[in-house]
């Protein structure tokens, strides 16, 4: 699983909302091609973008049951999860390679964003004889 993190501050002031139109187009086009390449290579399992964090809520169980809902995500976090890919590939090295390509998605002025991509193994089944 590749998790794409984006700086939390200033989505509108400093983030993607301030990019020139051409840079936005280049970014969207990159993501489209990237997903298509993963699909063609048979490595694509799933990819989803997430709604922006101001729509997010954190839910905890209240004492005695029922949801207790607060605005989220956690205020102290500097970055938020913008989206993720689940890929099925041969090796850890290959997963790192793919993550590096996602990280280098073009940003403002076509400069690679170098977004942090968190790579996590999806847990498998237990061995036959546990």
């Amino acid at each position, binding site marked *: 699983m590749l998790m794409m993190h984006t700086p939390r501050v200033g989505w509108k002031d400093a983030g993607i*909302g301030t990019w020139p139109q051409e840079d936005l187009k280049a970014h*969207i086009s990159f993501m*489209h091609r990237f997903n298509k390449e993963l699909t063609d290579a048979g490595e694509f399992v799933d*990819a*989803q973008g997430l*709604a922006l964090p101001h*729509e997010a809520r954190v839910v905890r169980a209240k004492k005695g049951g029922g949801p207790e809902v607060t605005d989220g995500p956690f205020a102290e976090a500097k970055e938020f999860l913008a989206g993720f890919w689940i890929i099925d590939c041969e090796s850890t090295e290959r997963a790192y390679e793919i993550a590096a390509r996602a990280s280098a998605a073009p940003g403002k002025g076509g400069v690679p964003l170098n977004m942090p991509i968190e790579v996590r193994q999806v847990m498998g089944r237990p061995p036959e004889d546990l």
Partner: protein
Amino acid sequence: MTPLDADAEHLLRELAPQVLGAVIRRFRDFAASEDAVQEALLAAAVQWPEEGVPDNPRGWLIHVAARRMTDHLRAELARRRRETVVVMQVPADQQVAPAADPPSLAYLGSSFGAAGTGDGSEQDDTLILLFMCCHPALTSPSAIALTLRAVGGLTTAEIANAFLVPEATMAQRISRAKQRIRTSGVPFRMPTDAERAERLSAVLHVLYLIFSEGYTSSIGPNLQRSDLSTEAIRLTRAVHNLLPPGGEGAGEVAGLLALMLLTDARRSARTGPDGELIPLTEQDRTLWDRNAISEGVALITDTLSRGSIGAYQLQAAIAAVHDEAGRAEDTDWPQILALYGLLKRMSDNPMVTLNHAIAAAMVNGPPAGLELLRALDADERLAGHYRLDAVRAHLLEMAGDHQAAIAHYQAAAGRTTSIPERNYLTTQAARLAERE
């Protein structure tokens, strides 16, 4: 395994509801019949490519499904017999309810010779099934799933795939829907005349939802899942062919079919090479499907000439006005404005008011449109919905207030749950910001 060719596949899907109707008629148990028919369809998909399509495909499917039902009933009978033995061992005064009669095996001997006699009952079966699957007792997602499976003949896996949920989730949804039909005791028959109008509108609503789900996929990275749209058009066409023209409700069925055809005609112009959304005014109109447009226009012209009017017909008429304009600037906006005015009087739907505001802005200038939007600010159904921000941004841009337009484009981008929409709205804001 050789795949089924397109003709045979088409035939299977067309026969699916007829076969199911015949089996339910004999055995009455909707849920079990539906399972049996699914098994028969699978058997056909495996055997027909090898052995060829049988001379009487409908009879073949009914025969196979009935054999499955027989097996099912025998197993059920054996189970009940075991339970009856247990019941017999309980003293009679402790029995709270008498054991139900076991299902009769008398059905099993009945012949299916009536298959394909052409008396029209097989067509009616398709309609009865639709009325059953779109029953008001079901929630929309259940009705959609059941309609696609029982009437559309899609497998659970195909439906799950179309709605991007795991197969087990969809199987559960379908099973709940069948359970619901069983407990609500909906009989397998045509709705009475008194029920008919309401039930037909439920059917059309479900078909419309299937179409929209395919056309503007509300979730996920892809804007269009065309298989669902195609399936919705196929089913609506079937209903259109089954209802006598000029009969009650026929106008709205024709209207819905026309609306789907006229909207779907723009499909290939609606997205760019990177999957990005292209609005109506910027679409390459040479990519529009002329045949679909001609068919849609003919349908809506014919039904309106019969003096019939309804919400689907009005929406189809609006789509026709758009489709008939060779260039965006040739669009007959005064006519669209008048049609939205009629539609607004028929249905209290904030989405209609949104579109009405756009038409008003095109005809009478942006302040007229913005004025209409103000009425929606207090509407709770739209509270926080990105479409209100998106339309307001568009009208503010027309009015030359670019700063306010940028703010509303960005607000809309932050609220939509569709990535292509978000990309589109963010790009609009960026385009305006560059002009400032």
